[in-house]
């Protein structure tokens, strides 16, 4: 290299949960890290999500994603402990198991078939079906609606407070000395003599490597680096009730009670671009389903609703890639930044620091979509 030492070893573009987790892992590996955050106008999935740390349902059709999710959830307990020790912030992680409620026999049968199919795909998949009696035994004292015939259950599932997670990540990054620029939309990234020059609204930076982890802000930057970014947005809405005495011991599909007693109700999916409104129709539908699962929620007051945009690839599994044209430029796209946070801070950061994604993570390259369309 002709130029003097670069200012940063790695620039991470994206200050949400995905980018912050990767930045943390890089800092722990002795890298000098620049973390660039677009600012409050960004479509911040990290601030809108439901907070599940979740295995079941993840990776149907892609065993590598099942293994990756399992890996991250196995790292999560130590990850949460580490964040608490370094910051004093309790991210309210619980790993007591999680359920997917089935309403009616047809729903239960469909779920059973999916679980059986996923179990056949990878030995790490250990979700089981519970009939209603089994579900009631799992959650004593909870009164379920008449239509609840059972659930799928994974004992490794859990949840956390995603806002506390983001707070803890930013706190620990600050303590470790990351250069965290907020309100710094990146306009241009170019490879110059084996390094990267980043032009942002808070100035120019140089780094030896660059990681694009900017959620919906990624495609424009990825294109400049020859990186794939096959994503679309999917709006999800969430209802938030008043706080009530803790009565729901486990998180479930579309219903969980936070450590403070709030009930969060999801989950919807709509293709509406980046229209971030909430709608009464979707909210009413989610509330109606929640009441079919847990009738005693009737009469609870809703305090607010919000919407956010999932970052979805064509098969909904993550995309990780290094640019073949510009080695040292990486991209990380996924809609499960909370679940995968521990693996992003661990194995993914390790791979970036090493300078190669390696055989396992290479399976997540977006080339899989080209193969499928060519076949």
């Amino acid at each position: 290299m002709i130029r003097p030492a670069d200012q940063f070893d790695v620039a991470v573009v994206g200050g949400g949960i995905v980018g912050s987790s990767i930045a943390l892992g890089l800092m722990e590996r002795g890298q000098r890290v620049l973390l660039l955050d677009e600012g409050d106008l960004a479509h911040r999935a990290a601030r809108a999500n439901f907070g599940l740390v979740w295995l079941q349902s993840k990776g149907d059709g892609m065993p590598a994603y099942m293994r990756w999710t399992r890996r991250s959830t196995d790292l999560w307990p130590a990850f949460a402990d580490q964040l608490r020790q370094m910051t004093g912030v309790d991210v309210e992680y619980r790993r007591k198991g999680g359920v997917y409620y089935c309403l009616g026999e047809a729903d239960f049968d469909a779920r059973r078939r999916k679980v059986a199919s996923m179990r056949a795909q990878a030995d790490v998949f250990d979700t089981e079906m519970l009939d209603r009696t089994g579900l009631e035994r799992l959650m004593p004292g909870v009164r379920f609606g008449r239509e609840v015939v059972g659930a799928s259950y994974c004992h490794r599932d859990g949840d956390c407070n995603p806002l506390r997670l983001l707070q803890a990540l930013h706190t620990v990054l600050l303590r470790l000395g990351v250069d965290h620029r907020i309100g710094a939309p990146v306009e241009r990234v170019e490879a110059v003599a084996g390094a990267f020059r980043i032009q942002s609204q808070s100035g120019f930076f140089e780094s030896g490597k660059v990681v694009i982890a900017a959620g919906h802000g990624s495609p424009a930057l990825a294109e400049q680096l020859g990186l794939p970014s096959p994503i679309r947005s999917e709006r999800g809405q969430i209802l938030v009730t008043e706080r009530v005495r803790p009565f729901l011991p486990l998180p479930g599909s579309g219903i969980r009670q936070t450590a403070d007693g709030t009930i969060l109700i999801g989950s919807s999916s709509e293709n509406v671009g980046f229209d971030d409104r909430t709608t009464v129709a979707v909210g009413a539908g989610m509330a109606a389903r929640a009441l079919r699962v847990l009738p005693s929620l009737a009469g609870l007051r809703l305090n607010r609703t919000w919407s956010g945009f999932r970052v979805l690839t064509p098969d909904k599994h993550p995309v990780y890639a290094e640019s073949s044209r510009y080695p040292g430029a990486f991209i990380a796209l996924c809609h499960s930044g909370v679940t995968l946070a521990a693996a992003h801070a661990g194995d993914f950061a390790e791979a970036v620091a090493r300078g190669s994604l390696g055989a396992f993570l290479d399976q997540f390259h977006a080339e899989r979509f080209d193969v499928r369309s060519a076949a």
Partner: protein
Amino acid sequence: MFVQPPKGVRSRLIAVTVDGEEVLIPEGSSAALAAMQASPTGTRRSPATGQARAPYCMMGACFECLLEIDGVPSLQGCLIVVRPGMTICRPQGAREIPDA
């Protein structure tokens, strides 16, 4: 909502109860104001932490003024105008889920 009537103008006082104690308060006031008048050091306890809390924004945004009014729990007291004989209770701790 914080505007006091001009000097010499007497607004009619009406009687409500806050935790069983009678409170006289100018007509048109909010239930949150009645609760504050009865209990200036806090109108509820946080269901999460047990901490004493009091109305903050008085415009429907902060949810700090939650009260039980005429038997209905968790109402935003700042958005409800007092009526004669209104029964206001200050919540102590988390609301129970009925027959959960």
